[in-house]
């Protein structure tokens, strides 16, 4: 059992499947009638968001509340947090206030790792996105969604072909997905313009291609990544239009997928840029489902990381 969730690479196959299975059970348990479970009653989860991210923050809030935890959300966005000492001071404050887990989103790669390993706090740390490094719960919710559609919601993703398209260089979603999907046995191909693929990507546990049509043909799923406007200004590619033509997903391209192939996007989408509205809202799109699954997967992560503490077990036994 891992203590923190910092990287999708921290999860071995059994651990990853256990989280996905737990998420499935929690999804069933919190159906229409019962929304809340008492599991984390009396425990405190702090959402520490140094970076704006409405959907991830809300998802974690909902997950913690459905497990009956007390939730404190700290958004540093707009405050004077620009230096690292603030992260340390905040950690010390949270520790002093008796937080049990910290969900952290930060613009610096490795911030969650630093929080967990620095000795600043004893809290369980969950990485909710660190810079251009990782976003492991996003990868878990993507894996959960893929498993639901491609493997009947059980086991792993052995032999399934997944294509990840776009700004691989700056994407924490891509990094976490490549690691987790490979752990689960899927065959991953990353596709993007060479300027948006990191140096050394050939060493990653995936295939690399510049040719989207070729990679999509017969694939079981495609995951489109958001392309930030500032990438265009930094001359990673000549124009939005050229990007769309070469790496955007339209209906024609989506039809290259396997008959039951699905389309994922971590959101928020740039409709008309990396994905057309037609595909985003079309029958292959599971984008809305991803959001729902996100809550269950994050519940599972909090449940497994926090619920396994001995004090809780003794409490449950008494």
């Amino acid at each position, binding site marked *: 059992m891992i203590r923190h969730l910092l990287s999708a690479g921290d999860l071995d196959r059994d651990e990853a499947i256990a989280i996905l299975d737990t998420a499935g059970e929690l999804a069933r348990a919190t159906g229409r009638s019962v929304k809340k479970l008492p599991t984390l009653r009396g425990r405190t989860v702090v959402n520490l968001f140094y970076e704006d991210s409405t959907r991830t923050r809300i998802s974690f809030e909902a997950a913690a509340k459905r497990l009956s935890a007390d939730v404190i959300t700290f958004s540093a966005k707009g405050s004077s947090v620009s230096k690292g000492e603030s992260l340390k001071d905040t950690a010390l404050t949270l520790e002093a206030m008796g937080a049990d887990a910290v969900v952290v989103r930060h613009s610096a790669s*490795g911030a969650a790792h630093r929080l967990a390993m620095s000795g600043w706090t004893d809290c369980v740390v969950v990485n909710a996105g660190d810079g251009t490094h990782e976003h492991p719960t996003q990868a878990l919710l993507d894996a959960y969604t893929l498993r639901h559609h491609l493997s009947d919601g059980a086991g792993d993703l052995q032999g399934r072909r997944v294509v990840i398209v776009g700004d691989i260089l700056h994407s924490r979603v891509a990094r976490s997905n490549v690691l987790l999907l490979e752990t689960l046995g899927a065959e991953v191909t990353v596709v993007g313009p060479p300027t948006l693929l990191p*140096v*050394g990507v050939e060493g*990653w546990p995936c295939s690399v291609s510049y040719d989207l049509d070729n990679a999509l043909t017969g694939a079981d799923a495609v995951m489109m990544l958001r392309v930030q406007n500032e990438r265009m200004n930094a001359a990673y590619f000549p124009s939005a239009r050229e990007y769309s033509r070469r790496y955007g997903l339209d209906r024609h391209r989506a039809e290259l997928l396997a008959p039951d192939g699905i389309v994922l996007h971590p959101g928020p989408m740039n409709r008309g840029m990396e994905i057309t509205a037609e595909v985003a809202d079309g029958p292959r799109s599971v984008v809305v489902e991803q959001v729902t699954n996100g809550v269950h997967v994050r519940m599972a992560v909090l449940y497994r990381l926090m619920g396994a503490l001995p004090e809780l077990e003794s409490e449950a036994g008494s």
Partner: protein
Amino acid sequence: MSMVIREVAPHGEEAVDMTIDDGRIARIDPAGSAPAGEREIDASGLIVLPGLVDLHTHLREPGREDAETIESGTAAAALGGFTAVHAMANTQPVADTAGVVEQVWRRGQEAGYCDVHPVGAVTVGLAGERLAELGAMADSAARVRVFSDDGICVSDAVLMRRALEYVKAFDGVIAQHAQEPRLTEGAQMNEGELSGVLGLRGWPPVAEEAIIARDVLLAEHVGSRVHICHLSTRGSVDIIRWAKQRGIDVTAEVTPHHLILTEELATTYDPRYKVNPPLRTADDVAAVREGLADGTIDIVATDHAPHAHEDKDCEWGAGAFGMLGLQTALSVVIETMVETGRLSWREVADRMSTAPAIIGRVESQGRPLEVGEPANLVLVDPRARWHVNADALASRSRNTPFEGREMSGRVVATFLRGRPTVLEGRLA
């Protein structure tokens, strides 16, 4: 007062008795045969080298006395076996006028632990726009001969050309921090597979190598000498080797940390390992060791870069670049170069004393161990082992990358013009 250092091995060779008097080496006698001095030091088992000379030190004074002062930095230097250091210009205010360099020089004299030779800024305010008054600094009491915008590359080719030409008038040298700025915007670590995995913006080797290639060609074209600071990649070593074969007057330095540490330390996300240029790969480490052994790289220079605790006790992206180096430099060289058979002690003296003194045009340092020479000396116990404890270092800062590590060889004593600055491993 005369002092006899008994049974000490110059350059690790045959032991002698070395008598120091009036700031100079007064006699060298066969071991055990020197007449008694007013003071005696039993140095059996110890090696004597000329006092070490650092061409690249950040003393932070004036401006950041919370991180280091000339006094604390030179104390660290003496404990590391140095008798002279070159203080980099990126202070606040910048050392870009005769006034500032004279102040630094004088404060070094007052501290007394080792000589402080200020490095002058190449451009006003390190802004890379127009030349600082290099001649005034050269003519000042500080007699500046090394000029550098260290920390910032003189990236403008015309400005670099002018600087190289201009300092010929007083036998100066431009020490270039080779870093193409556009290729390294926001860079956090060596660019390679690992930077991609860690999601840290890469600092590609080509950003260093392209500037070095340009500058050796510029130096050749205008007939000047150029010094390359802290080179860190195999490609850089290859370019310097090529330039020297071509007869270009280029010298180069490598830091102790680039001789021993690799980029894998970035996986900790601990900014203690964040430095500029960044730690590179094991292959680069092998290349700089080879380069230092065969003389392609002329010297070891520490790039001692103290930083306040809060600038390192944070996440990687917010951390400052740089590491302490003065008190660990010799041990790293012993471990990586001497114990591996790559350098003799005589060559260590060359790389860490004689050659840097020549590059910096410091006539009284890096001298041969001969009668009549100034007694700038360091006694080293090559077999001693010690563990780095940041709290016990003389620096005001604690950002050593070697905390807890066992180090090879220890400085026992340092003499500055015959006066001990360090005895029995402690400040005298």
